[in-house]
């Protein structure tokens, strides 16, 4: 039977932990509200632009820009987005497992290059044999739009100069608070749905001409895609942390109530024992 003092100590330490998880939950709830707003407000932009881009590229034809040109996948760049910090459940481990599986699929036929955002991704891929082209492993939450734009430009440059034949992004999409959705998306070449010519019957007028329009539209498109992946991941991370911390707080609560029950039982037992001893002593003296 454990001593009372040990139990009291355990209960106290669990209470402390509970306070911390509670605080972390509050913090991530606030952060989540903010990033959720970004995602919800940005979605109409993010989700309409690819459709437009597909129509435009179908009209302009594959030769209009090097970014539209589809090549055999000999070299593949993969953008992996995780969080910096843990304590958000299976958020990172699920994503990294999926990424590793995807790399396993691609690596026999193609040379792989990695672009990593997030400390967890960097730690994970450090031990793997794939070359890391670019990594942001610090202060991911504070990553400026400028840095994301730089990533988009970097990817476009590599594709234009044929250093890579396809660019994929693996990230957690914010689907609901309960669970993020791991998404693998192809960023480059600007993908046309296979077998389906979505272009309407006749091509539109262009102002100015299509080549110049595409030259400015494609970078915008790429930047938007990278922003999209990043902000979705950010919102999903906060949601995952919120859930994880809520569960932790609840578990601590359960644990405390169990321990308090045991504590009371032991206390009760020892009081009964003492009473019994006293009674026996009184009985003995009375004789």
């Amino acid at each position, binding site marked *: 039977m454990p001593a009372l003092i040990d139990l009291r100590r355990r209960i106290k330490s669990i209470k402390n932990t509970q306070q911390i998880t509670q605080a972390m939950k509050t913090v991530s709830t606030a952060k989540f509200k903010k990033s959720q707003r970004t995602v919800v407000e940005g979605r109409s*932009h993010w989700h309409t632009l690819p459709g*437009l881009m597909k*129509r*435009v590229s179908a*009209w302009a034809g594959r030769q209009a820009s090097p970014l539209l040109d589809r090549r055999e996948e000999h070299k593949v760049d993969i953008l992996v987005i995780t969080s910096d910090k843990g304590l958000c459940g299976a958020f990172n481990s699920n994503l990294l497992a999926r990424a590793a599986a995807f790399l396993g699929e691609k690596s026999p036929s193609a040379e792989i290059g990695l672009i990593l955002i997030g400390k967890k991704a960097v730690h994970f891929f450090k031990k793997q044999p794939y070359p890391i082209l670019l990594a942001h492993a610090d202060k991911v939450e504070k990553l400026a739009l400028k840095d994301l734009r730089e990533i988009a430009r970097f990817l476009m440059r590599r594709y234009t100069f044929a250093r890579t034949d396809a660019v994929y992004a693996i990230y957690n999409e914010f689907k609901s608070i309960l669970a993020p959705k791991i998404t693998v998306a192809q960023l480059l070449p600007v993908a046309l749905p296979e077998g389906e010519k979505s272009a309407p019957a006749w*091509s539109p007028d262009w*102002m100015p001409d299509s080549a110049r*329009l595409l030259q400015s539209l494609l970078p915008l498109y790429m930047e938007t895609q990278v922003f999209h992946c990043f902000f979705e991941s950010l919102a999903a991370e906060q949601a995952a942390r919120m859930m994880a911390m809520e569960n932790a707080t609840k578990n601590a609560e359960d644990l405390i109530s169990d321990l308090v029950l045991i504590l009371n039982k032991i206390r009760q037992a020892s009081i009964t024992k003492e009473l019994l001893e006293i009674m026996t002593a009184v009985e003995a003296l009375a004789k």
Partner: protein
Amino acid sequence: MSENLPASLHLKIITPGKLLVDADVEAVTLPSLEGYLGILPGHRPLFTALGKGDLAYCLDKREEKIPVRGGYAEVQPGSVLVFTELGQDEDSSSPLG
């Protein structure tokens, strides 16, 4: 092709921040790079870059104006899709109330 001319234009204006306008309108005026373009239902497909200026549209016989700064517009006979960034005074002229 005049027999099935759409009666109105479905206008969508999307900024990086949000979906600003999503409505059926009677006419749209786009500030293109080479001057203002009036778009009526049944316009020929057009893809154009936008310059700086006021984007105007007619909704229920009232004209609304939105100052924009660059962007792109895709015109189809029955719809107009605009990607743009707002000009400076976006709050004072907030459309649709």
